[in-house]
């Protein structure tokens, strides 16, 4: 039985080796079929509706998934499956900050996002932060940050320090488990970064509830 009934949007991060050749059917269709089988045979909840605004009819098999595909050298396929719950996803945000906002601006935005989320995203949360890139890429970075192990840090010590500082600020908020008050509001803050345009400093916050479930396989 899944620990949380929200078994999420099926999100995949796939690194495809350039020497891999798929035969006997399409790669994307294979992922779809994997989602159908996994959600059916695992008795997982089907949480996807076909159109976002009007009919919102359940697709009944949890497809379509979201697939982030990257080509890498080699002859293997690395698949990371990260089911994403809706409650924490709804507390996420992208902000197109400007270079003058600086470190303080980033800190304030992230801490404020967690404060305004209160008990909604099922704290204690893991906070994925993207900084840099473009409007769409920064959101991807924030999601990718959630894949990291909870005790990991950004390789650049300046960003690693910022992760620790933001985590400390968040845990001063007192929101606590389920928002009912407590010392632990976040378990980790993970920052992922990318170079960006001279005019920009996009920042994204993607929230992950405490039921953080990931699975990785290499074919």
């Amino acid at each position: 039985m899944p620990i949380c009934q929200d078994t999420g949007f099926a999100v995949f991060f796939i690194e495809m080796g350039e020497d891999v050749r798929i035969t006997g059917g399409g790669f994307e269709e294979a992922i779809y079929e994997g989602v159908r089988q996994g959600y059916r045979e695992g008795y997982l909840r089907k949480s996807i509706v076909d159109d976002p605004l009007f009919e919102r009819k359940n697709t009944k098999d949890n497809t379509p998934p979201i697939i982030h595909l990257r080509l890498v050298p080699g002859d293997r396929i690395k698949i990371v499956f990260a089911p994403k719950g809706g409650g924490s996803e709804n507390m996420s945000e992208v902000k197109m900050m400007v270079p003058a906002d600086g470190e303080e601006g980033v800190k304030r935005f992230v801490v404020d996002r967690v404060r305004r989320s209160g008990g909604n995203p099922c704290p204690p949360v893991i906070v994925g932060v993207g900084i840099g890139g473009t409007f769409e890429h920064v959101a991807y970075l924030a999601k990718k940050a959630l894949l990291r192990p909870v005790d990991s840090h950004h390789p650049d010590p300046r960003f690693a320090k910022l992760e620790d500082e933001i985590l400390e600020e968040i845990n001063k908020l007192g929101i606590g488990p389920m928002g009912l008050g407590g010392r632990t509001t976040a378990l980790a803050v993970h920052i992922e970064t990318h170079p960006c345009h001279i005019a920009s400093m996009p920042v994204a916050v993607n929230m992950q509830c405490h039921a953080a479930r990931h699975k990785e396989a290499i074919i």
Partner: protein
Amino acid sequence: MEEVKRIKTPLTEEVVMSLRAGDNVLLSGVIYTGRDAAHKRFIQALEKGEALPFDINGAVIYYVGPAPAKPGQPIGSAGPTTSYRMDAYTPALLDIGLKGMIGKGPRGEKVIESMKKNHAIYFAAIGGAAALIAKSVKEAEVVAYEDLGPEAVRKLVVEDLPLIVAIDAHGNNLYESGPEKYRRG
């Protein structure tokens, strides 16, 4: 250990008014599930002058979209979903007799005002502890909107469902008083 209050549905005025934010309760009896899509249909039904699919007088609605039941089990994992999404629909339901709601996360001002006016209570269930919560569900049956899948309205029979009174009928709000105790700096 803190005292745990055992309460039963349908909720009486006396029980509702005696509960205080922060109380631990074990709830038993019949409750109904309903989340986003079902709430939209409730309101559409009311606007058309149609009846709701269950008797709302004294009823408790649990904001949940359960996972499918495995063979031989009444229900799959069944933890709460975030409640504020139902805020827009809630006062209209409180006005016609809804007495209790179960979910997670804070509620808007209009909901709290309506809870005070109509003497209703809001319980928090523990998000993410859905497999554990499912153990309290003894029977489950879809009673309306089957096409909504996990969002269909189900009649649940629960036994000792563990809940915390998050916002009481007097307006005390654990989402404010709880974090206040722990806030630093």
